[in-house]
């Protein structure tokens, strides 16, 4: 996996139209889950008692899983592609952070 090579499944047929397509529908649901999980995170931090907190927290976890699952479906259908970055860039970052490790306070 050396050079930048785009990784993507064959894309399913999506018509070019002003009408809503399958891609639009699933993208919208993905956004919805993202928005809801962020909102749950704020809500759960404001929860007054344990049982109530747990209810929100669990809903948050499930919505978060759902977001991943929608993303995986999109990837399978070729609606998402990934472009790996160059190895040299990763190594550079690794070097830098390995050096910075000396600043960590705990022995």
């Amino acid at each position, binding site marked *: 996996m050396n050079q930048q090579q785009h990784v993507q499944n064959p894309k*399913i047929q999506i018509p070019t139209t002003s009408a*809503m397509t*399958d891609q639009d*529908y*699933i993208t*919208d*649901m993905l956004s*919805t*889950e993202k928005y*809801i999980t962020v*909102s*749950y995170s704020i*809500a759960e931090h*404001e*929860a*007054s*008692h*344990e*049982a*109530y907190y747990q*209810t*929100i927290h669990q*809903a948050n976890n*499930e*919505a978060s899983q*759902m977001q991943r*699952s*929608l993303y995986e*479906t999109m990837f*399978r*259908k070729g609606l998402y592609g990934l472009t790996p970055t160059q190895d040299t860039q990763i190594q550079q970052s690794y070097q830098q952070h390995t050096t910075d490790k000396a600043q960590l306070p705990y022995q």
Partner: protein
Amino acid sequence: MDQQQQQFQQQPTAQTTMQEAPAVITGKDLNYINDMMAWNLTAAKKAHAFAQSCQDQDIKQAIDQAGQMHQRHYEQFLQLLQSQNQPPTYQ
């Protein structure tokens, strides 16, 4: 309801020091619950409508599952409000 609220305004003595927050729903909690139910209702309805228009069966199923989850969460939040009929329990 008024009586119940007064209970919590009493100064706890050394013997009745609460180890955790009692199961009360505050005004702030209720505001959030109302909001969360609104998000889930809209999300469930939207997913249902979207899924009905989907061509691809896998995408349809994925969106339907999300919609069912939101319906379940709506019902869970609704239940939080219903259980307020019981007196709060202390540990």
